């Protein structure tokens, strides 16, 4: 099928884009990398009257790794994140979640902002950003605000983003994740490269002594994808891990993930299995994170 008729806008600046949104509001849809919206429009599930293409807004692309924080522009592609070596050094979970999205052609076009705004609970970035306690930056014609990723995702594909707002970027505080004592991982179960994962787990561990074989965990982060209607932060799993060794806490952390999981069944994965996977992928992701923290 072909999409229903729409008017196409191609602003070249954030101001121009937010100006269009202020005028068009609910009748407009933002177009980022066009890896989801085009399909939904071709099926006429979505029939926006106006399309505001952010492809020419160059100010929204790029990764900046600073000493205290990392800043990622909303129009940065998955591919750019995947190959951002300085970002991999600083916050490995982000490029690792990027490189596992679909195939190369999707990663060449798809963007961080598009994925975050789409807010599919199976998506990689929403879960990674919830785990890392990232801040999302939103802007409208006459207003801008910052909202923690942990508060942004409200329900299935439903976010705090207003019809006149766009996401300009993401910042992540590096302070909790000193490179020499931190390991992080994004592990997912996927039945095929081009599909959404069945369950994913993003975890990070900061240890007291990376030279030790059994260091004490100072800080833990655990978040899961696709086992709830939003990316699922699991503070109980983090509490179970902090203050002791990985072996002391990993089973309790997996149990906490299982308790927190409330997945909806899919054709290929029933609820019971997804709950079990929530525990298993929490374990796997934590083990990888631990190896990386102590390497």
């Amino acid at each position, binding site marked *: 099928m072909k999409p229903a008729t729409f008017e196409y806008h191609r602003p070249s600046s954030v101001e121009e884009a937010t100006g269009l949104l202020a005028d068009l509001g609910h009748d407009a849809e933002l177009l980022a990398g066009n890896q989801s919206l085009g399909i*939904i429009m071709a099926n006429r*599930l979505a029939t926006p009257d106006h399309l505001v293409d952010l492809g020419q807004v160059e100010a929204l692309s790029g990764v900046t790794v600073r000493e205290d924080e990392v800043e990622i522009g909303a129009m940065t592609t998955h591919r750019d994140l995947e190959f951002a070596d300085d970002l991999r050094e600083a916050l490995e979970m982000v490029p690792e979640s990027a490189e596992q999205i679909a195939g190369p052609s999707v990663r060449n076009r798809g963007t961080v902002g598009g994925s975050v705004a*789409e807010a599919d609970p199976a998506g990689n970035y929403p879960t990674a950003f919830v785990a890392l306690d990232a801040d999302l930056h939103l802007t409208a014609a006459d207003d801008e605000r910052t909202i923690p990723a942990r508060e942004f995702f409200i329900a299935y*594909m439903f976010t705090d983003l207003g019809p006149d707002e766009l996401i300009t970027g993401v910042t992540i505080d590096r302070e909790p994740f000193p490179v020499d004592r931190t390991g992080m991982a994004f592990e997912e179960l996927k039945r095929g490269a081009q599909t959404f994962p069945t369950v994913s787990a993003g975890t990070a561990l900061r240890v007291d002594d990376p030279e030790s074989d059994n260091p004490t965990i100072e800080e833990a982060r655990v978040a899961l994808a696709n086992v709830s209607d939003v990316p699922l932060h699991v503070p109980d799993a983090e509490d179970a891990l902090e203050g002791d060794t990985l072996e002391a806490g990993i089973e309790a952390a997996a149990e906490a993930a299982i308790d927190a999981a409330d997945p*909806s069944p899919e054709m290929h994965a029933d609820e019971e299995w997804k709950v079990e996977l929530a525990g298993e992928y929490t374990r796997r992701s934590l083990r990888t994170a631990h190896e990386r923290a102590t390497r």
Partner: protein
Amino acid sequence: MIEFSGDFESDHPPDELWNYFTDPEILAQCAPGCDHIEQESESEMSATVAVGVGSVKPTFDVDMVVVEADRPNRLVMNAGGDASRNSFETVAEMTLEEREDGGTHVDWHAEAAVSGLIASLGQRALGSVADRLVNNFFEDLEDLADEGVPAESKISEKPEATATLDE
């Protein structure tokens, strides 16, 4: 058939809240995605409501009939909405119970028959969003009651109407 339900706590007594729940202007302000509500008769209203999941956001022409209005305890509405390639029909009921401290405990329940493209999203997706939208509605209404915005009960039940779904 999709079922939704939930509850809400208000600091205001049922009799005061009732005016808000039965004032079309207040409803229009609080209902998510709703531009305006026209009162067609003492018990009938029509509205244009745009709600959606992700970029799927149809605009519905909604007709509502109040089939039971037992002030200040129970309100039952029959509503149907049509949008291009989507439609729904719902029976929604709400009971208000006075708490010992003078506030109100609101229980709500709705059964909906959804057809068209939004139906393919499934109960979990729609339920997740519906819960959020209904809570927003109650919170906005509570805010108006907190601010003391005047509300006037303008709706009464339609005689001999009963709540049914065509299915």
